[in-house]
């Protein structure tokens, strides 16, 4: 089954996403800040990486920028979940190298659909 990393500092949101995706049978790895996320990304191969924008230590944006600098992670699929929903924020994230963007608050069911779409397309 597909392996997904979720980086999110808010416990409640993390619980929401983890519960939803685990119900669908995905294997979820959790990180609570940007640094932890980066470490896990470097150590593991994920089918998809879900990043929160506002995280302590390193923001989601920082993580993307660092990951995209590594050639071996050039193909990694990254989705940004952000409460910063303005078009400009979204554009910045995509420019930095995120593949997908979902704004908070998001629908858990829609999230599942998007993920199925992304991973099923493979």
């Amino acid at each position, binding site marked *: 089954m597909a392996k997904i990393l979720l980086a999110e500092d808010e416990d409640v949101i993390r619980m*929401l996403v983890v519960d939803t995706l685990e119900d669908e049978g995905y294997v979820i790895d959790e990180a609570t800040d940007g640094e932890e996320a980066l470490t896990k990304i470097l150590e593991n191969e994920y089918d998809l990486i879900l990043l929160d924008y506002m995280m302590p230590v390193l923001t989601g944006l920082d993580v993307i920028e660092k990951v995209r600098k590594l050639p071996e992670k050039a193909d990694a699929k990254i989705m940004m979940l952000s409460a910063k929903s303005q078009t400009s924020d979204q554009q910045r994230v995509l420019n930095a190298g995120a593949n997908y963007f979902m704004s908070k608050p998001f629908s858990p069911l829609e999230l599942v659909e998007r993920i199925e779409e992304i991973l099923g397309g493979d």
Partner: protein
Amino acid sequence: MGISKFQRYFRKSLARQFAGLLFTFFIFSILGASILLSYQHKLTEEYGQKNIVLENKETIGQRLDQAYNKSFFDMRGYFAFDNPDLKENALNQLNIISNLTYELEKVMSTDEDIIFYNEVQDFTSYYYEQAIPQAVEYYESGNKEALIEFVRYGTTSRVNNFQEILQTYRLSKDQELEDNFEELAKRLTTSQLAFVFYIGMMLIMLLIISRRMVIQIGQPLQSLAIAAMDISEGKDFRKLEQSTRNDELGTLSRAFEKMFQSIQENEQDLTAQNEELIAQQDELNAQRLELEDALLLMGEREETLKRRNQLIRGLSTTLDKQKVLKSIVENMSMLIKADQGIIVLLDTNDYAGFAISSNGAEQFIQHLRNGHATRAVNDKKAFVVERETSISERGYHEHSSNCSDLYVPVVSYDDRVTAIMVYTRYGSGYLEKDIEEYEFLAKQISISLENIKLFDQTEENRLMTQDILNTIHEGVQFVNQEGMIIQINNKMCEMVNCDDDPQSFTQLSFNNWKTILKDVVEDSEGLLNFLNKGVNTESTMEVCSYIYHTKSPSKVIQVYCEPLFRNKQKLGTVFVYRDITSEFEVDQMKSEFVSTVSHELRTPLASVLGFTELLINKELKPERQQKYLSTIYHEAKRLTALINDFLDVQRMESGKQSYEKKYENLVPILESVIENQKVSTAMHSIQMIHNTNHTFVLGDKDKLSQLFGNLLNNAIKYSPNGGVIKFILHELENKFIIDLIDEGLGIPEDAIEKLFTKFYRVDNSDRRKIGGTGLGLSIVKEIVKAHEGEVSVSSTLGVGTTFTIAFPLVKNRNDDERNSIIDMDLQKHANVIIVEDDISLSTLLEAELKDNGFTVQSYKSGMKGVRAIKNSNPDAIVLDIMLEGKEMDGWDVLREIKQDDKTSHIPIFISSALEEKEKGLALGASGYLVKPYRPSKLTKTILQTILKRDKHGQILIPKSMKEEKKM
């Protein structure tokens, strides 16, 4: 040639002469000594030879003697003893004698020797050829008688004679030997004497030569010295004799002479020059005198001209009215040769005087207005007034004298007298033609005064415009078509960080202005383009603006331009620079805040919506349903809290929050805050400690509760492992301080400054679990600010944090006076009795106490006072020691009150000029005030005592401490 060369050789050097002399002396000494020695040697030699000859002769004589004697003896022996041997012996002697005779012949030299030789020859031949053969014949013939006869008469006498001759010869030779020796001794002596004499002569010679030498060296040196002395004393120089010499002295003398000659020549030169100079000087002097005469004449004319010039220059160089007036009056006075002068402007009464005191001038102006001014104004002509000198003018002169005042009106172009000049000369009067000239000068003065007036007006207008410009809070700059700055205001100057007057920027070229801007503006390219466009624009419609940032201080400036036209002709462009930094910052903060708020709100919303969606759309187990519902509930609550806090902050920051401020005792507020929060934690022990009685704050009770609630909530939240949390109340430097100390996680140093920023939360995994809106401390900050307080934080990571709130200290007096119900009651009812004989003082004290809400009665005598106290039982007594009436003084009153059980509790404050505090307190007074004191001090003292008494045991022990005690 040889000799002269030799002489020259010696003449050249004294040393050579001296050495030669010594050498000669030495040679002569050696020569003398050797002659003496050789002569002596010769003498000795001669003496030796002669001696040998003489000794030889003597020896021969002696041996002859011996030989004859032997022969005689032998012959006699033969005759006597008839021994033929003897006869033989005697005959043998002849050989010896012959030998000797021969020898004698060889050595004989003198006549005596020759005689002696002849004698010997004779005798020998006689003796041996005659006597002996005869005698022997006689003897042998036995003719004794004949023999005897023969011997007796013939032979014996002859033998004896001969013996005598021999003897004599020997003696003579002895004598000769002796003579010879004596001769030698004599000659030796003589030669030695001669040598001694010779040496003596040599010494004398030496002496003579030495003396000559001394004379030769010493004298010239002396004469040289004398000559040098003479020269130094300035006497004439005599030629030195020795200068012809060839030796060192000669050289010295010649050098000396040369030196002197050159000195003399120089001196002569100098003398000659000097004489020439003197001659020239004389000539110059003569010329100078001529010139001086001419100059004096010139000078007088020039002085007049100069004054005129100065007058004109003074008129034209400055537009400062006072300076011009001063210059006019001074130069005119000089020109006129006046002793005093004054110029007065009739319009403004401005004046300037020459040799006149300001007092005198003002008096004179007064006088002028009443008198001669009218004539001058009407006639518009100069005139002279003769008068007697006043006493002050006369000075030290005793007699009165006359002086002439010259009045010169200054007539303007519109034939109006604008000013009057008055000049005073003591003694002499004025010439008509001079007066005409002065009138002419007055015309020029008039023009200049007119100019000044015009300038003043223009300047006034200009300053007004500049002042108006300077009041504008925006930078205003007017440039001409080339961009050169025509006018600029203070604010503009400030905007480019100038230290100077804005005037220094006028006439500044556009390029220079751009250079100034480049230094202060961030990314100046755009601004400069804009300014270029502004300078060159021709259209009024083209209102343009541009926003730029400055470097330091960092500011945001908006500039707009407006071309300026007059009669459709462009004059230039006005640029207006607006400092929009604060608007810009507010704008930025606003958008940032909105972004943050939206993020903060979206997070709980996301979970509420998300979980709700799951609940709606999924079949979930009851536990999960329960978990989700409770999460939704908490997140919704968090959302509410967030919105509330957010609205609070908004309200407070925008100043829309209203505070209902009263004097509140903070202690009960804190107690209730502690009570509320205690419920949420079992791990923490919360305490309150006061170290002050001034616990009142002018504030809003609800907001104060919120403030300390937030702080206490944080303290609890951020000390997840429990521990003690303390409120410490104390006073410091007129501040009421509340410290809140926890034993929690502490705050990293770099986070402290951001702590009060909205939505700021310390990033740390330990803290992530701890919820919060990030607005609590922002609210705290706002509330504290609204209460004129200060908040600060100190913290050590892992040890704990202390929040310190400082409020302005509120003295209880004010509490009582206005708000606190208990204290208001207390004070309203506080009844004070004053016992004081000084009415003015008691009135003063009464007024002060009444102003502070006390009820007051005052009494002048002790008796009346005591009676009133016993009747009304007041809350406090103010007591003087010296009282009216002899029967009872202050001490008596004090004792009386303290003795009575009903009144002994009433505090008594002694108010006295006597310094007997000890005695007063010993007798039971509560306070002792030494006159004079400020009345407010009395109020304060009374209040403190009353409050202390009333509150004792009630407020000072906080509940938390009571609880602690119980535990």
